């Protein structure tokens, strides 16, 4: 029987970064994925680090992530394209400006280095913004990176230390015995470990359910695209007009937005991720924001599925029974959070405790969540979030 110290279920950015940290700490770690490395949400993300300023619960973890991002290229040995060139929220309609003022107030509860800026300042930070720009909210903090490169950098750094990633090996069942986690079952047989960390993104809930564990996440699918490469236009990570936008170092404008469709995941099923004609509407909004992009082209669109928690904040939950089992959901912003989230997960798996600020992020906060929350909130598969 193969035995490891730690089995990580899922080779997305959260699983890979956790595995790398645990391996660095000397543990024998196996990563299993039903598909290839970083083929799901982690390679489909836009690449912004959310400072989670509106969520006092997880902002401390985001701040830790921000620090770790700064040295990630060096730590991993592979480029992530991280650039800390600030974040800008922009309003181009009066309603958006009102919303922005509210956002500013909530952010102020967490951070003191955010400022409301006028249209001219917005356009000096992001010159191609429409003349209709009304104002913005800006911080020099935070930035963006390339999600595909970053996920792969974690994978390579893990493998450089002798870690093993087994692709196309679905975990069909989590095994527990005598109140303790024992390992996992795959089509090739059982693999045992003292700890199992579930970083299975959208699939976490059905994987945990057979153990009688309820993991409240709802998977959602939505669209994204990139344009043909353009000359360098701006460096800040941008949230504007219902879109999240960055320009890649290569020059492509990379964005997501639009209504999100709730979907359903199985234990380890392959989930189709078709794009929808909504990309046409995203394109419309993009040229409303950047009129000069009219003559650029939509080059490639895709959609991704991510896991959303009831309060849209990260979950890090070490179960009491079976002990040794930890589950995580990064609630739609796991790309930016992975550097610190992985420290917490690795610490908890290897030592049962962590200095990372995750104590408030367990499932305990959902004690009052109705059992049929997805139905009650209209978050059931097939519904749009509108």
């Amino acid at each position, binding site marked *: 029987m193969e035995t490891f110290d730690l089995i990580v279920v899922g080779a997305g950015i959260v699983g890979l970064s956790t595995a790398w940290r645990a391996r660095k700490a000397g543990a024998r770690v196996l990563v299993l994925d039903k598909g290839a490395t970083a083929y799901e949400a982690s390679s489909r993300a836009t690449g912004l680090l959310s400072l989670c300023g509106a969520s006092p619960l997880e902002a401390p973890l985001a701040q830790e992530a921000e620090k770790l991002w700064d040295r990630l290229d060096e730590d991993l040995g592979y480029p992530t394209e991280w650039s800390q060139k600030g974040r800008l929220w922009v309003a181009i309609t009066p309603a958006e400006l009102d919303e922005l003022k509210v956002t500013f107030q909530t952010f102020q509860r967490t951070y003191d280095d955010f400022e409301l800026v006028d249209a001219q300042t917005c356009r000096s930070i992001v010159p191609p913004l429409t003349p209709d720009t009304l104002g913005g909210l800006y911080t020099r903090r935070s930035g963006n990176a390339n999600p595909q490169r970053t996920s*792969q950098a974690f994978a390579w750094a893990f493998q450089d230390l002798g870690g093993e990633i087994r692709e196309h090996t679905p975990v069909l069942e989590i095994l527990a015995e005598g109140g303790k986690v024992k390992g996992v079952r795959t089509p090739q047989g059982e693999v045992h470990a003292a700890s199992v960390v579930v970083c299975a993104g959208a699939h976490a809930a059905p994987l945990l359910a057979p153990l009688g564990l309820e993991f409240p996440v709802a998977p959602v699918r939505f669209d994204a695209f990139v*344009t*043909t490469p353009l000359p360098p236009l701006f460096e800040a990570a941008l949230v504007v007009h*219902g879109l999240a936008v960055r320009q890649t170092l290569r020059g492509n404008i990379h964005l997501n937005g639009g209504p999100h469709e709730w979907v359903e995941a199985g234990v380890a099923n392959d989930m189709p991720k*078709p794009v929808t004609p909504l990309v046409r509407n995203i394109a*419309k909004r993009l040229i409303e924001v950047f009129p000069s992009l009219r003559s650029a082209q939509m080059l490639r669109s895709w959609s991704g599925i991510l896991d959303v928690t009831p309060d849209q904040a990260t979950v890090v939950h070490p179960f009491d029974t079976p002990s040794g089992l930890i589950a995580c959901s990064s609630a739609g912003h796991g790309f930016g959070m992975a550097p610190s989230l992985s420290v917490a997960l690795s610490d908890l798996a290897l030592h049962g405790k962590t200095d990372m600020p995750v104590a408030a992020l367990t499932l305990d906060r959902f004690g009052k969540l109705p059992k049929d929350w997805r139905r009650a909130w209209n978050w059931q*598969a097939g519904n749009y979030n509108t």
Partner: protein
Amino acid sequence: MSDQIPLRVTVIGASDAGCAIALKAQAAGHRVTLVDEHPQTMGQMSFDAPWFYGAALPAALMNANAVAQVVLEANPGIFACSEAGVDVRVGTIAWGAFQNGPNSRHIGVPKVGLVSAEGNELLDHDVLILAPGVRDFVPSFRGADLPGVFGVKAGVAFLDLYQCYEGKRTLVLGTSSRAVDFVRRAIARGVEIVGMVEPGTAFAAGDAARDEMAALGVPVHYASALLAAEGKVAVTAARICDLSGGAEMAVDCDSLCLAIGVLPNIEIPAAMGCRMRFDAGVGSWLPKTDAAGRTSLENVFWLSSFANGGADPKVVLEAMAEGGAMGDVQPAPQAASDQGAYLRSWIDALYASGGGAVTLCKCESVTRDDFLGLAPPTYLHGGLRHPQSPVTGPEGTGPRVHQDLLKRMTRVGMGHCQGKRCRDEAALLLSLRFGIGLEAIRPGSYRFPVRPVDLSLIATAEPAGLRWSYWLHDPEPVLE
């Protein structure tokens, strides 16, 4: 479905198979729309998909109206469809196709996204027939980006479709039947064919074709490969080398036709999620189809001379009326072609003689070596701490190489042609270098739009009343 006549039938591609089924379906009383991207705007032609026009677009193409007229006259199939009352949309790109399925349930009636110089629309259909023809196989070599280098489909289009061929002395790569066809057409238009290059020792299209070429006075360079297209601003010569001894010679020419092979356009069925299979004979992934051209998706057909002999239109028509998708158990059809081995022999020869420093991906300027070594693009000014291999899996569990990994890390196939020029050579290089069968190399994903589309043309106002919240959802107040 048979009681639902007339069916709304959208045919994509005015290929022979596309025109034939469009005519047949229209005659049977269905409402047929036939879509073809040609004539392309010069902007679209510059993206080199599906045909590789290369860097020299003849000035004659600037006159869009004249071009449109010429193109319509040159395709009797389109003309016949038009006469028969088919709604013919030329100069129109089918950039995507959408239908309800798992994780996407808001499409309603299946639709195709169409875009032309006038704008875009979503067209509903009951039956979708994909007959999008072929694209040029574009191998890499030094000087491949010089004006005067083009693919065989583009060459035939310059000669006969657009009638603006500018070469006077053309060297042809390959001795396939495509190459022979090109030579015949070129000579008929007064072009001098200065030679054909063949890495093997036999004429690929057979002895009769060999004799015909000899009678036309076309020299064939056997056991040879192309080292470089040469010239300062356009092709003035081609340097070829003898594969056995390495002797080099320059061939005086002003144009170079890449006629090694053509591959089926599979991006629409692949991006739609049709089940695919690797066809070693063709040297390409193809959608799985039955004899009537049904794919694994309901009411979606794929017709290609590479797969189902273009399927008899009568059979397709009956299958359309019946509806449904292909059954699960289908014998894999016999390989209809030995092109796969021929493409491989060419890439083997070009790689062996040209080496690793040749640019493989023209859009993103990435060399063969940088591709195979997973090197980050040069603008990142950095390398990998440790060498990495693209081979990620052992034999048995799944694909051993994922071309998407190489795409993401090296950007090969991420540029404006979306890998239409380089993806097949890239897979062959991986196969040759790492000794892995092509069927164990998962090809890079195809994505909509299947051609780059101007944002101004595709931009569409969202439906009134749609709430567009940024990011996910307003947090719910239910937790106290």
